[in-house]
């Protein structure tokens, strides 16, 4: 009965949504994305238009999103008090232990690369941060098995990084405000956009990339580790 009702509701919803969506303008009718890409290079110096949108045009949204993650990390750390690792009571074999140690630098470098090259190639702070967090999580999971707890970074340090990153993001924003009158301003502050395509280009975008990458990475690490070790 319940399943039938649920299926019925979903079906009707899908049909109605499809009916409504059938009127959406097709891709051919919209030429804006292309314009955006061309414009964003001139405006922000970022080759990757998505990064330009995320960290310049709509950097305020990014600030908000990063705040969401910080909030969640704060909540999870508070609501799920850390206890002894109860999830993985098995001892990891030597292969896993050493494999992880060998793997970690690569993961970290990969995450950093995604983060740092966010304004040039696909990727960016968010993605890089998630990748970074996986390295911390992997380490914590593998080496916390069996009772003792060990982390790449202690939880307190994680929290500290998170708060510093938050402050740094706001500081970049206030810098823009002081320099040009607009919160989170980039090119308008006159810091120079550099040569498009080089690592140090696009003004504050790489900086914000790193900051939000740290925020996200540390935040997610806190969340997952807290959940694991609850």
């Amino acid at each position, binding site marked *: 009965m*319940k399943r039938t*009702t*649920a299926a019925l*509701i979903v079906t*009707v*919803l899908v049909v*109605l*949504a499809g*009916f*409504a969506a059938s009127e959406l303008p097709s891709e051919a009718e919209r030429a804006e994305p292309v314009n955006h890409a061309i414009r964003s290079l001139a405006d922000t110096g970022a080759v990757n238009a998505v990064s330009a949108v995320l960290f310049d045009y709509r950097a305020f949204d990014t600030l908000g999103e990063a705040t969401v993650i910080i909030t969640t990390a704060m909540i999870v750390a508070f609501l799920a008090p850390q206890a002894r690792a109860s999830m993985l009571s098995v001892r990891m074999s030597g292969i896993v232990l050493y494999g992880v140690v060998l793997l970690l630098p690569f993961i970290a470098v990969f995450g950093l690369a995604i983060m740092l090259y966010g304004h040039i190639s696909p990727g960016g702070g968010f993605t890089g941060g998630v990748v970074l967090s996986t390295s911390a999580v992997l380490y914590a999971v593998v080496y916390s098995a069996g009772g003792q707890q060990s982390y790449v970074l202690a939880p307190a340090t994680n929290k500290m990084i998170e708060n510093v990153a938050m402050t740094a993001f706001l500081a970049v924003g206030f810098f823009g405000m002081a320099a040009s009158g607009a919160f989170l301003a980039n090119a308008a502050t006159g810091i120079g956009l550099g040569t498009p395509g080089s690592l140090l280009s696009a003004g504050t975008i790489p900086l914000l990339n790193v900051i939000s990458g740290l925020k996200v990475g540390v935040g997610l690490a806190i969340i997952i580790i807290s959940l694991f070790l609850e």
Partner: protein
Amino acid sequence: MSSAQFSNAVAATVRSPLLDSGGLLVAATIAAFSLLAFAFVAAGVRRRFWWWVAASVHVAAGVLLPFTRDLLSFFVLWEMVTLGAVGVLAFEPDARRLLRLYLPLQLLAAALLMSAFGAHYGVSGSLLLPVQGLEAGAGVALAALSIKAAVIPVHLWMTRTYTAVRPETAVVLSAVATKIGVFGMYRLISGGPTLEIAGGAVAVVGVIYALRQKQLRHFLAFHIVSQVGYMIAGVGSTVAFAGAGGLFHLANNVVYKGLLFMVVVMLISRFGHSNIYRMNGAGRSMPVLAVVAVVASASISGLPPFNGYVSKTVIEQFLSSPVAVALLRIAGVGTAISFTKFLWYCFFKRAEPRGAGREDTCDEIVGDNAHSVPARSRPAGGGVAVDGRPAAHASARRRIAIAVILSLACVVMGLAAVAIFPALPADAAVTLESFRFGLVPPAIGVLLFALAYSRLRPALERLPSATLYTRPLSTGATRLLRALQEQHSGDVRRYLGWILMGLIVIWAVVIL
């Protein structure tokens, strides 16, 4: 509505009250009667300070109501009347049960009135008191006013409250609560023959139900319904003189109905119960009270020198619908029968032996006796002992004095009707001529009582109760509430289902 309008609406009433003779008459009568009623209450029992505050609010709002110039103040004062009454009732021993019935109906009335005002404002754009009646929402307003006036299908709050409170409280409440409903009709509704006939019908039905009562206070309560019928017929008429007659009847009713309630209070405190058939000839032991009761009964039955005669005659004379006139005549006869019965059983006839006749078969409230005897340990045959204070003969004398003043008022209002209320037609005075015609319906009533009442009584008692509809209504409501509760029982899946279904319905309506 702009803020300026809002403040103007309030300020207008304060600065320039609406002073017309009808409003003045009603306000003055209510004020004067209430003072006497307060004195009456104070003479016998001790009430708490806040009881007096609540009662004063109730009465003061009722007195101010006729002077309002705009609908906002009208509504506010209307609410104050209700709240004052709530305050008074809150001090009753059975407050919870009383309020459970009183409040919802009163609030329903207030809500309906508010929305009717909204509709009127919507059409006319003005909050001033309409000259020609509400332009929109008149039906809704009429429903609200009918509830307040305790018209028959929605009379429940009044009959149950007035019969379950301590008897003195009913004296105070009777002056304002139902009356402002009628007064509201006078001010807000432009009536017509339909309203006249409806008033007549209410008068007749009220009398029939009054006739079957055997508890004094039920008897009086249903007579309020019946008298309200007269008033509605009057103020609901488009003829100006009939309206004036209706208002005058309202004022008279405040006086003689209050008087009757006082008589009943004294009878109850004398005998400790309120069964009409067991009053045991109170006329012998309380001769002054008997005279007062006769005056009040004559007044309500429309006997010539008294005030009830004048107003009834004016109403019947000027109504445009002959059907309404006929109904009112029938109601008049019924009233006469009814009050002959009252006087006969209470003051002149010796008690029926206990157990004769079916006890307690047709009273609306089963537990009446429990409430009509306020102090549980009242000494039999003794005086008033409410709130534990021993009765004093002085207080009884003071009460009688107040009653006598009111019965004099009945005579004065009858003889000097036109002087008191100039809006009445000039020939409305009591003359010798009036005795010829005016005595006829009461005489018929007395005659019918003497000949047919004993045969009529069983038939009356077999009538279905006027509150036939309440039980299914309340079970339905309970069921609805339980179903609603069921839907909020904490099952998240159900909540999500509601959200999605709501979305589907809205989508379907909006985009298909």
